[in-house]
């Protein structure tokens, strides 16, 4: 299954590598990413003090790549978590209770779905300062509708299956049926979707940063891209290197998500 899926295993390998770099890297390479270490806009490979070059202030790009991962990954995870919590709750209630609950919740979902996601996130970040927490919440708030619809569809399908009727016939309460009977069976597609959401959220954070809306007091890959953007024509490395890190992370997460999807899909399961 998952282990035989080479693409997914490669994704997992990349992700483990990234997490290791992010967690252990700062202990090995302890240069403060905010510190100015050399002349501004030194290209990579020209100076041993900053092997991957410096940004427009003269800050070490390598230090930024190593120290900036924590914030980026944390934002991705937190946003994905918020997405799943909101999406699952809304979808589960709508799909289980149907009727008026479904109508109201789905109209709300549609309302959020028709809002242009990036614009809405920008408004939120603009209103409530650009700290990392706000960015994570903003991304979570704009990306939950697809998850909600997916959860609702799963609940609609499962709620009429025989084992649910069986549970109901022995007197199980609604909450028990939702959380303990339907949810475990609805989880596989939701896990896949959540994994992919991590990737989207990281990209989203990079997009907000590109527009200059990232937290200037926390070093993240998105922040590096946002601050290097002005000099993109003169210093490709200040934007491309953190961009590459984000690319690798999103690729790894997507490969894992696809692998999980295949693994959960009974039709592709080899017996």
């Amino acid at each position, binding site marked *: 299954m998952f282990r035989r899926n080479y693409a997914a295993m490669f994704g997992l390998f990349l992700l483990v590598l990234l997490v290791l770099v992010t967690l252990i890297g700062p202990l090995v390479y302890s240069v403060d990413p905010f510190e100015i270490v050399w002349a501004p806009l030194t290209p990579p490979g020209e100076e041993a003090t900053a092997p991957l070059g410096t940004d427009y202030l003269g800050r070490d790009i390598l230090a930024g790549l190593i120290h900036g991962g924590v914030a980026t990954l944390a934002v991705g995870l937190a946003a994905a978590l918020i997405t799943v919590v909101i999406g699952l709750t809304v979808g589960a209630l709508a799909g289980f209770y149907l009727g008026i609950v479904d109508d109201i919740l789905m109209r709300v979902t549609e309302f959020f779905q028709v809002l242009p996601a990036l614009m809405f996130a920008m408004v939120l970040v603009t209103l409530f*300062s650009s700290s990392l927490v706000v960015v994570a919440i903003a991304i979570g708030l704009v990306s939950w509708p697809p998850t909600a619809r997916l959860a609702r569809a799963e609940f609609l399908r499962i709620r009429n299956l025989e084992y649910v009727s069986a549970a109901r016939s022995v007197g199980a309460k609604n909450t028990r049926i939702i959380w303990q009977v339907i949810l475990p069976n609805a989880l596989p597609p939701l896990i896949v979707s959540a994994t992919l959401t991590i990737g989207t959220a990281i990209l989203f954070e990079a997009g907000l940063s590109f527009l200059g809306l990232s937290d200037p007091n926390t070093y993240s890959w998105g922040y590096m891209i946002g601050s290097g953007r002005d000099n993109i024509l003169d210093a490709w490395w200040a934007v491309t290197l953190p961009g590459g890190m984000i690319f690798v992370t999103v690729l790894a997460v997507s490969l894992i998500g696809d692998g999980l999807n295949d693994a959960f899909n009974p039709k592709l399961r080899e017996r």
Partner: protein
Amino acid sequence: MRKFKTLAMAAAVMASLVAASAVEAAEAVKGGTLVIGMTQKPRHLNPAVQSGTATAVPGTQVFATPLRFDENWQPQPYLAESWSVSDDGLSITLNLRKNAKFHDGKPVTSEDVAFSVQTVKDNHPFKSMFSPVEKVETPNANTAVIHFARAHPAALLAMSSALLPILPKHVYGDGQDPKSHPANNMPVGAGPFKIVEFKPGEHVILERNPDYFIEGRPYLDRIIIKHYKDSNSLALAVDKGEVDMFPFVTNTRDIGRLKKNANLEVTNQGYAAVGPVNWLAFNTKNEFLSDKRVRQAIAYAIDKNFIVKALHGGFSERASGPVVPGSPFYAPDVQKYDLDLDKANALLDEAGHAKNGDGTRFTLKVDYIPGPNEQQKAIAEYLKPQLKKIGIAVEVRAAPDFPTWAKRVSGHEFDMTMDIVFNWGDPVIGVHRTYLCDNIREGVIWSNTQSYCNEKVDGILAQAGVESDADKRAALYRDAQSIIVDEVPIAFINTLPYHTAYSNKIGNAPISIWGTMAPLDEVYKAK
């Protein structure tokens, strides 16, 4: 023999002068369209009630002013063919041209001048500019006499560029508020060009005024001012030749790149009067920053040479006081606060702010104007690692847009902020406002938002504001500046590296003290 040589030389000089002017006249081509690219977008086009470069560039084409200034700070006739200042300095008589007409065909009279002075006095954000005006007399249609309550040495300068546009009284005198007058979007003036189209955020299209009061001018048929979202895309458009002129280039990488283009000329002339200073302002009501020693320590910790040379690639210049170098009132001999971390640490120790366990003394927030990143954001971010060296933790507070920043700073809800403030030619107009005790006005941006108050400085500035002897005035400003620099309500960092990039087809590029914020009636474009 000697005599002959002198004569011959004089003749040669004469000949060359004649030849030069002949070449110049022959070169001035009539017709053509000048495309100017700008990133600052105007809300409306009436400079009488609005300061700033966005309104000033089109505004000075549409409206004529009594005077204009050349590149040597000398007043030149414009709407006024001559003028005289009374011996006591308390009145100025303007003799207006008789052939000047507004774009709608009505003549420009002294009534319009009197009306314009009053409108600017009542509505322009630069209160000090015309506040000494008592009344304007109009003995006849072509003579206006402006009377001042006290001597006003900056008065002539305030009658040039975008500072005193002559408005048509028959349009603006209808009792409506000039700040929101419907004519502000399609104004009627007497300048070299008239408005044909204004699309806010996109472009302003101006067309030659055929009845302009200077014979044979303007040379250009049309000026299009195109507004760009950011300087990167504008710089690319200039590089490709889509835009003929890019004034107010601030980004030094753009300047460097445009300089390499053989089809472009790049100059830093034309900004002497604007006098833009990039600085770090302190809220002197902050518990830490109320101590002069703390402010001095921060000034000592900022490496101005690094900023000017490394961050700005040598294109900006160090600023050391309220008045920019290049102004007649610049003070060269003030304390320069060269980088000295030991001194900075010693000052903070002396002020009683000991370092705690992790080497931090206290935390300060720094704000910056969003937009001109290289001047503002970059230096705000630079302060974070740099002030860490003297034990001050800096938190960079980003503002999503200009109004948010302006609200924080004008509401005095800040610790320190990066800021850009213009000298506007004369200290009375652009410098006094930052330091006077009675200009601590909550809610007004670019007032004395530092809440700095020193009665001695107030006294000297008041005296300098009415002193008509230029040397005595300069001496007074030197005194005021040395006190201000010593007390550091503001850490002066650099002057903005404003440049104008223009196509080498453009002749008579605008290099007067006001640059593109002056009538472009002499500019031409070769075929």
